[in-house]
């Protein structure tokens, strides 16, 4: 309801705007005294008065109005101690570069103490966005028009109706026209008009569905019937969309599990080393991403891409150090290895905690990885998850290639199947151990780079994934990379299917119980190793 009200302010402006659009050239620029008064009206305590002041700014026809409103929306419109209005250009540090709001002239840097921000709340934010959207409908920029048309869905009221209908006739972009017509249809449906209901039939947009379900409870039995039919007709479609969405959630959770587990599938699965510090190698990969972003300020995307090799290298080197200093002396003693590597994991965590900070670090998500891909009105897929899913598959394919097609892979398989025999054939088993451990650790580093985009980068990052990783490897079948992939993805999907029905806590428990029962039945996991290697 608030939005409808706030739009009320805007309507009168619309009329004046459409007038000024034609008469733009002969408007004399308002003198700065009146502009100052406009801004001064914004600097009041009451949000209601501020709302009226915003409307006044809009109706002033001042060409700086949109910039002021945008600055106000972003919290960058401020007032200095001497009463001047200031636009903050960059509010990231402690001292901010500023410019005069009226003249646009840069004024150097000012500190927080000298400035008072003109605050807004969510209601005003809505009002500002709607106002800017209405202004932008007349913008020559198609993107701006599309955004503003999207925003107007469900927000059209009686006064906006006529100007929007006019705009539809003039608009040459199909997408904008389509959205605006839908916005009008939603309004009509809410008024209980048959025409609107017909136009909305088949629409998946939540606003349209809200309008239809209101019409379905309306007074006119014919319209109510039609609205009910329209709602029922998309029911099946919605179910399919929800199914696809759940599947995507599952695959994406699964891809995280696969990434976390695949390095372990090599060190634990192939080499048989229980490395409890695996999670910490992932953490190091994530911190490498943070470090790269610190080294390349302002280029989070480039830093992220560069941290893929960097994260691999850092984790691989630390992995080799662990292997050389501890694990090689504990060969064939799994319990001691478990305890020693658990100790290492605690040491690495505390090193990061004291060396860098116990606090989480901010890793920025680059522009091209945020937001979601809109498939239709009822289904959109988040892009960061999609990138991680693709990355997991690429890493998996790369590992498969190394294990199947390279000499290293052949040697690794030979050494793990029969160490003595491989050595007698001239393979340097120690070197292969180092390389394998480096590879497994490096992949953990890659997982860390990916996780930095999904979760917290902090000293505890690894702990949260180590149990899940072992679970996936054991479920998939020790020593089998395909098993890890299938196990990870299917556990992800099972978890996400159960979650809406059982809740997050119970879903996790059910999955664990399921795995315990499964392991009872098939102790060697989904894809048990066959042949003589399995005996070892």
């Amino acid at each position, binding site marked *: *309801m*608030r939005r409808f009200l706030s739009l009320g302010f805007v309507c009168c402006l619309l009329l004046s705007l459409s007038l000024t659009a034609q008469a733009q050239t002969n408007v004399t620029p308002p003198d700065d005294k009146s502009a100052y008064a406009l801004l001064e009206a914004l600097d009041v305590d009451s*949000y209601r008065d501020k709302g009226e002041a915003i409307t006044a700014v809009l109706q002033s026809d001042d060409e700086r109005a949109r910039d002021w409103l945008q600055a106000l929306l972003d*919290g960058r419109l401020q007032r200095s101690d001497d009463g001047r209005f200031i636009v903050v250009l960059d*509010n*990231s540090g*402690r001292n901010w570069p500023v410019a005069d709001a009226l003249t646009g002239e840069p004024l150097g840097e000012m500190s927080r*103490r000298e400035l*008072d*921000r003109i*605050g*807004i*709340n*969510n*209601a005003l*934010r809505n009002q500002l*966005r709607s106002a800017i959207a209405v202004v932008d409908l007349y913008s020559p920029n198609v993107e701006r028009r599309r955004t503003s048309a999207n925003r107007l869905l469900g927000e059209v009221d009686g006064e906006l109706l006529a100007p929007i209908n006019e705009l539809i006739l003039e608009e040459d972009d199909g997408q904008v026209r389509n959205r605006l017509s839908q916005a009008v249809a939603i309004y009509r449906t809410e008024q209980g008009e048959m025409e609107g209901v017909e136009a909305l039939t088949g629409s998946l947009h*939540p606003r349209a569905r*809200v309008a239809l*379900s*209101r019409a379905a409870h309306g007074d006119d039995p014919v319209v109510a019937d039609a609205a009910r039919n329209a709602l029922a007709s998309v029911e099946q479609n919605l179910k399919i969309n929800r199914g696809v*969405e*759940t599947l995507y*959630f599952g695959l*994406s*959770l699964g891809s*995280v599990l696969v990434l976390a587990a695949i390095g372990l599938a090599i060190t634990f699965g192939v080499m048989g080393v229980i490395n409890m510090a695996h999670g910490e190698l992932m953490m190091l990969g994530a911190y490498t991403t943070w470090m790269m972003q610190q080294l390349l300020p302002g280029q989070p995307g480039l830093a992220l891409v560069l941290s893929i090799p960097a994260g691999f290298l850092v984790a691989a080197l630390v992995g080799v150090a662990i292997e050389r200093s501890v694990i090689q002396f504990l060969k064939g003693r799994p319990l001691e290895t478990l305890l020693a590597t658990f100790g290492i994991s605690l040491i690495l*965590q*505390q090193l990061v*905690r004291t060396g860098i900070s*116990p*606090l*989480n670090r*901010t890793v*920025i*998500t680059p522009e091209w990885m*945020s*937001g*979601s891909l809109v498939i239709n009105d009822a289904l*959109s897929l*988040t*892009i*960061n*998850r999609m990138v991680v899913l693709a990355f997991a598959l690429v890493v998996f394919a790369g590992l498969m290639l190394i294990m199947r097609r390279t000499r290293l892979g052949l040697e690794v398989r030979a050494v793990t199947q029969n160490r003595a025999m491989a050595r007698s054939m001239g393979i340097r088993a120690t070197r292969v151990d180092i390389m394998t451990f480096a590879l497994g650790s490096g992949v953990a580093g890659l997982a860390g780079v990916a996780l930095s985009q*999904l*979760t*917290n*980068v*902090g*000293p*505890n990052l690894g702990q*949260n994934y180590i149990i899940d990783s072992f679970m996936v490897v054991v479920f998939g079948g020790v020593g089998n990379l395909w098993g890890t992939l299938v196990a990870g993805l299917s556990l992800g999907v099972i*978890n*996400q299917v159960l*979650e*809406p029905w059982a*809740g*997050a*806590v119970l879903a*996790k428990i059910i999955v664990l119980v399921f795995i315990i029962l499964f392991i009872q039945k098939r102790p060697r996991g989904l894809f048990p190793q066959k042949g003589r290697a399995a005996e070892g």
Partner: protein
Amino acid sequence: MATQHNYPSRRFITSVLAAAVMGASAQAIAQEDDPIKVGILHSLSGTMAISESTLKDTVEMLIEQQNEAGGLLGRQLEAVVVDPASNWPLFAERARELLAQHEVDVVFGNWTSVSRKAVLPVFEELNGLLFYPVQYEGEESSENVFYTGAAPNQQAIPAVEYLINEVGIERFALVGTDYVYPRTTNRILEAFLKDEHGVADEDIMVNYTPFGHSDWQNIVSEIRRFGEEGKPTAVVSTINGDANVPFYRELANQGIDAADIPVIAFSVGEQELSGIDTAPLVGHLAAWNYFMSVDADENYDFIDAWIEHTGDEEAVTNDPMEAHYIGFNMWAEAVRKAGTTEVDAVKDAIIGVTVPNLSGGYAAMMPNHHITKPVLIGEVQDNGQFDIVWQTPSTVAGDAWSDFLPGSRDLIADWRKPMECGNFNVVNGSCGGSTAAEEAEAALAE
């Protein structure tokens, strides 16, 4: 016979008295030389280190400042720091170490409710003083604990009232981490929404997730659908710690804007936001009793001192830090008033003590060991700070026992003489002991 019997015993008494006098004077001499020991019981390692380690630094800074100003009662203060390592049973051991071995005069510590419950018996047994600085679920008042964080009526209830009255919200998703604080708070909120505001069952959605939950896809999409049904919807979040970052990220990625479905959080402060890119979160809300952005000279002085102490230009301050600031000053004032650091004297002297808070007002210690606080609602800004959009016209006194839960409703706490009771039942007029607390817990477990 009688005299013969009396004689040695009289001598015995005199010697005992003499020894006592000598001992006391020796103690007095020792007191003048010895520093006052201040125990700090915050995790410096483990999962809670992220939140608790800054509180240790805060208390150290306050001690430094106090020493620079000449100490207390002419004595210097000395910090005794132990690390309970985010391990709840270890909290109890370390508390015992502080009280029995180091004989500290006061302890500042704990973050999670479960750790507070673990040290409670130790403080009661050894008669220590604990200042607890974090917002919590209430339903407790101990003779030995001073709760300088918010009780539910100083945070959750005003926050929800703000949503209903100022924002016009009609549907509520209560989302929290699965442990005692969110569960109790959400029960109180559910009862409050239904009884006081007539919110229907279908307009309340409750969801719990494990600690450190990182895959929010399903829950966020459920919230989105919950909010798409036509009524203005808000999320009331008691999600704790790390899990918040992926939660907000998922919200932003699924395109849920604060203008569509605002999230009001009770456990997200400046510190939590410092680990996250806040641009997509602008407009989401938090309810606290202090924000770093508060416009008050005391606050700016505190921030400057904090930045100087940490040597980090980007260091942020937050609500539990202010709680320690208030608690420390209250304790110092009470020691001055009592003229001694002796626990029982300080405990009596502190009730009614009033000290400045950081938002330009004053905090007073109430007889139920809770303090008065203003309630502030802030909106997240893109620089990781909060813009204060609403605040209670005056300070609110902390209520140990919620008025919205059966069993707890009839209880009050008053540690002044002659009542001296943490759970006095006003209906049957007796100090409830354990039964009232159990009733409240049973009501919770329903």
